């Protein structure tokens, strides 16, 4: 680091000096010190402003809502299509994910919830019903979106997959 004076100047700027030390330092500030402090203050404002400016319009909720709602209280009528314990992050190459003959076997399981919103239980749906869903290396969420202008008359289904990191 720089010399002792620089270290104290930085600690003073960052509010890290004990009260007596602070008072002593303040009493001995030179014009050069004040200019350096002003430069530090300016840089603080520029860095904070640049990052906060870039963050002004950020909106993360839309991208995570599906998974948050899937993990929150299930809606009435929710049915678990496939729920399996995670068997470890299976990224092993060459390992077969599917058995032969008897159907599909997935090494990396996913937990998913199906939301069914039977607003009109006796009314036939005009959309899509998921009957089975298996994923590997990801988490899947099934989201039903009300069709306008006839909400409940048949919802559109979104199969949302989020890849494992």
């Amino acid at each position: 680091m720089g010399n002792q004076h620089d270290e104290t100047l930085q600690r003073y700027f960052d509010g890290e000096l004990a009260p007596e030390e602070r008072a002593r330092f303040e009493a001995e500030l030179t014009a050069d010190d004040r200019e350096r402090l002003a430069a530090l203050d300016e840089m603080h404002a520029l860095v904070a402003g640049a990052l906060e400016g870039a963050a002004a319009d950020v909106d993360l909720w839309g991208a995570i809502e599906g998974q948050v709602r899937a993990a929150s209280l299930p809606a009435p009528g929710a049915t678990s299509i496939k729920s399996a314990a995670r068997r470890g992050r299976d990224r092993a190459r060459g390992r077969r994910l599917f058995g032969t003959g008897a159907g599909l076997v997935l090494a990396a399981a996913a937990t998913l919830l199906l939301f069914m919103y039977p607003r009109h239980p006796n009314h036939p749906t005009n959309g899509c019903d998921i009957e089975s869903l298996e994923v590997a290396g990801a988490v899947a969420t099934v989201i039903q979106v009300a069709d306008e202008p006839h909400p409940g008359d048949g919802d559109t289904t979104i199969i949302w997959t989020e890849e494992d990191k």
Partner: protein
Amino acid sequence: MDPEERKLLDDARRGDAGAFRRLVEKNQRRAYAVALGMVHDPDDARDICQEAFLKVHKSLHTFEGEAQFFTWLYRIVMNLSIDHLRKRRGDKIEFDEALPGEELEDDSGIAPRRTGFDPQRALSDKELRGQIHGALAALSAPHRAVLIMREVEGLSYQEMADQAGCSIGTIMSRLFHARKKMQKMLLTYRDQTEPA
């Protein structure tokens, strides 16, 4: 923790997705600013923040409320950012040790020269913002981390040392050099774009 935040957390823990949404909306800009400062790429920063909030949501039941919610979130964002940088650069990032190569520079102090840029411009001027982001990206990851911790989050030296797992002396040294480098880059940019 303030009472409103505590109530939102309690409601979110009980499965209230709307309460969690309000927590996200209250904290997303700060989280994004930290991630962006660390990884430089807006899309990567967004991915990191999304993953951080989802991790938080999954672990709500483990958070006792002993610290502020954002402190908890911030740690997750920082760790994910560091992981991301490690993956990008092939695990060459050291966060625990001093950086001998970078610290052995000329021993002059903080430059006593302001850039003259209006900090308000940094909020809205894309080009200036881009230059600042570029200067941040040119710093090493440990230098960038201390600068963000101090300038954006206002953490104390002790808090930064706890976060980075190093001594206060190392934090002070990194901060000093990070500020010097940033100043140098911004002054160079200023001299190139607004000659005297």
